[in-house]
């Protein structure tokens, strides 16, 4: 069991009392859990296949060529077809498909031609299809997952760098602080968007998609950590002058210990307050980059790409833009509500000064 200080417990209690933020947190946590096991919900691979008395679980792991199930092709089995086949053959074979039996890449032209189809429960395209007949729900779902993972990675990296450098600047001060401040000033004036565009244009496209996403993350982190340092630096400056720090030093604590064990807990409220907004910024940035065509490589599912398709087909397929925009708004609203609640519960000043 987590050993929480009474103070932290009080903060958490306060957080729970702020209903809007608390419920948003619960919803987002639930959503994250769903996203984590997304393959079981939205996938073209079957959950269970029972073929000739043997059970298969194709969801995770290697692909099963059609030949595994008595089909005449060596590429990935089309489980929807297999299901109808099993039903027709009636030999006791069966399979169980996920709720949405489509993956985000396949073009499933239900109407014979590739074009956006409106939402239809019958075809199991619950949010319709996009311009090349891919399931929008599947693309949204996996797009959101990538965006959230991206945001998580982004926030963690930015915090790590920002805290380390910011604290060091505030704690050591002097020439070190002065020099690093100038470096940060120069660095933060490099136009971020152009750098992303330029760097991405020279990365050879032979690089695998996950690597490309990591590189994009790295570039974004490289140009975003600076903002965090300012807050950490001032907070550390302030804390450093307090008696408990002097006391710790007299006892003989090392710099690292003082920074991470003594100062850090006292500036935590600043950190946590900013966290949700960093997440929001990351999601917006990745979506914007995708919208502009400089983000995730085609055909990775992404919110930005769907938004782009949606705006290009505003009249003819409004469901694309509605789904994408709705998801984005919902996601950002949830995170913002959580952020507000955290700020209110973790920042003692809000109560002492303003209320």
């Amino acid at each position: 069991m987590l050993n929480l200080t009474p103070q932290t417990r009080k903060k958490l209690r306060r957080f729970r009392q702020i209903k809007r933020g608390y419920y948003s947190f619960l919803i987002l946590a639930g959503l994250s859990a769903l996203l984590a096991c997304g393959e079981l919900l939205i996938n073209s691979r079957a959950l269970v296949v029972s073929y000739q008395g043997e059970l298969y679980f194709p969801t995770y792991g290697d692909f099963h060529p059609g030949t595994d199930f008595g089909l005449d092709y060596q590429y990935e089995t089309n489980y929807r077809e297999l299901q109808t086949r099993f039903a027709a053959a009636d030999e006791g074979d069966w399979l169980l498909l996920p709720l949405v039996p489509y993956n985000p890449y396949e073009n499933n032209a239900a109407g014979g031609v590739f074009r956006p189809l409106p939402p239809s429960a019958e075809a199991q395209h619950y949010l319709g299809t996009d311009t090349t007949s891919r399931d929008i729900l599947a693309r949204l779902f996996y797009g959101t997952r990538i965006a959230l993972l991206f945001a998580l990675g982004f926030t963690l990296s930015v915090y790590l760098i920002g805290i380390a450098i910011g604290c060091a600047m505030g704690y050591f001060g002097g020439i070190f602080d002065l020099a690093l401040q100038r470096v940060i000033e120069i660095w933060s004036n490099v136009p971020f968007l152009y750098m992303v565009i330029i760097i991405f244009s020279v990365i050879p496209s032979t690089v695998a998609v996950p690597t490309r996403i990591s590189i994009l993350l790295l570039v974004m982190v490289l140009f975003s950590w600076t903002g965090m340092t300012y807050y950490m630096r001032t907070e550390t400056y302030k804390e450093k002058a307090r008696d408990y720090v002097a006391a710790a030093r007299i006892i003989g604590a090392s710099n690292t210990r003082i920074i991470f064990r003594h100062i850090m807990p006292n500036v935590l409220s600043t950190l946590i307050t900013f966290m949700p907004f960093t997440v929001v910024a990351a999601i917006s940035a990745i979506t914007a980059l995708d919208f502009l065509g400089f983000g995730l490589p085609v055909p990775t599912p992404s919110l930005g790409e769907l938004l782009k398709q949606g705006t290009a087909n505003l009249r003819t397929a409004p469901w694309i833009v509605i789904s994408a925009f709705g998801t984005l708004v919902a996601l950002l609203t949830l995170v913002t509500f959580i952020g507000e609640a955290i700020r209110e519960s973790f920042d003692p000043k809000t109560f002492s000064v303003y209320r």
Partner: protein
Amino acid sequence: MRKILYCLLLGLCVAGCSESPEEQPDNADSTGAADVTAEVEAFYAANPDFFSFKSPADLPTGLVWENNDHLPEIGSPEAVKGGTQNAALQDFPRTLRTVGPDSNGGFRTFLLDDTTMTMAHVHPDTRDLYPGLAESWAIDEESRTVYVKLDPAARFSDGEAITADDFLFMFWFYRSPYIMAPWYNNFYSTTYSNITRYDDHTLSITTRELKPDLDERVLLLRPIPQHFYTDMGEDFAERYQWRFEPTPGAYVVRPEDVRKGRSIALTRNKDWWAKDKKYWRYRFNPDRIQFTVIRDDAKTFEAFKRGDIDQFGLGLAEYWYEKLPDSDPDVQAGYIHKVMYYNQRPRPNFGLWINTAQPLLNNQDIRLGINYATNWSLVIEKFFRGDNTRMNTSHEGFGEFTHPTITARAFDIDKAQAHFAAAGFNTRGADGILVNAEGQRLAFTLSTGYESLRDVLTILREEAAKAGLELRIEVLDSTVGWKKVQEKQHDIFFTAFGVFLELYPRFWEHYHSDNAYDKAFLEDGSVNPERKLKTQTNNLESFAIAEMDALIERYRRSSDQDEMVRLAHQMTELHHAHASFVPGFYQGFFRIGHWRWLRYPEGFSQKHAAGPGDAFVHWIDTDMKTETEAARREGKAFDPVITVYDQWAE
């Protein structure tokens, strides 16, 4: 590295475009350019066989002068001059030059191809030649020479007379290293053997080989204004980057209309010398054609639907059937007309150009596998809704020059797998993509500059995965994409070359080893192990086969149409066997939507046209525009117009 620079440039251009185009130095000798008059004269003197100076008395007797003045008029007498046509451009032109680096962009059509005047032109209905700058011409097949009398009235847009000297200069210009255009250097030094000046308005041009289209080879040449290109030098490309060359045609670009990155306009020259000439008088009607840069197709379409743009190409099924269906209120109210024209002409060669210089792609089995693993029939059937046709070879629509029996390889997973296996890729990885014994994945980058056709590639990707081939898709900005192939950095590129209305296809540009490597073969005919890729050429497949070179050279020398047909077929077979090109699709028609005030002649459908604007026969009916705008406000409707001209359907 160049790509980075390019991106920087693009960024700068988007961010802060300078408004004034007149920044070019006019008098800079410090930059290394000098008056070239003396250099040109010296060149003429040094090549006396090529440049001859004679008097009218030297003209051979018995020449039969013709001027084809019996052909049907082009355009309609109803056409009214005036008004402004509004159009959109996806990219701002990178230069106003028509030759040299970056000059081969989409806007060249308006600077040169469709708007300039050559000595004669190909009639869009009959394919006969009709006079342009020439008053009349005479053909002497025996000496491979065409004699031309220029129209004494002919003037450039800056008022200077067009004389035989401008044609002599043209040869110097196109052969000059300053222009940095190897294709021109080569073509103009190898195709022609002599130009003779008889007097200011009489000249003759001789070709090196007698070709079936001797007349077109000569008469489709255009004059280059010597008085404009006085200062030439190493800095030609920068010096003339934003300067509009005086044109014999009707439209000029005024410096004040060049708003870099934003818009550019063509203005009708009201004193155009040919404005009352037969074949020319009913054309080039709008006073001004305003091009605004709209980078996004969807936005362009919305601008069109608002009436900000007068015409929109509805080639994609998505537009014709979904975004502007026949039931659209604007169509039903008769405000917007939908027209589809079938045509007959050489087809742009849409397909996958495989760079055989890349590792793995130099293996024929891999290329054959790729051919079998691309499912074009699915694309045609489901994405283009059956409107388009599969290309069989890279040269479709050239009549008897097109190979009659070769058919493109159809999608066949088993054959694809067999070929991939022959190349060592015989086991499937965890994701179904083939790997070879060294664990290398069968994956290539498929790039394109066509944003609007990205869906085609995602469909091909999904299908190719079934055959165990991974295609990584890279959708680039059109100019960035073009840059990439010109530097031969692509694996597989999806593109097409615009094809001129020519009698027979060109092979040298795409398949000669001269355009693939600096020195492809050694003296003994074996492959040069140290050869380097040649950039800035159209040999996108890095195609270099000695046998093909020999055939191309015979083809270029041949004057016998039957032999040329035979050679063309032989080369097509060789190209097909090499499998470095996956033929895609062609569209046997073009279709547009236009507001009713943009008018075309009654029953207009030109057999050989590539688009409705080729011959500039349309006009802007300003009264009708006012009327339509009023009708839209009041909700008044006209008769809907949805026309399909299928008399030229193949």
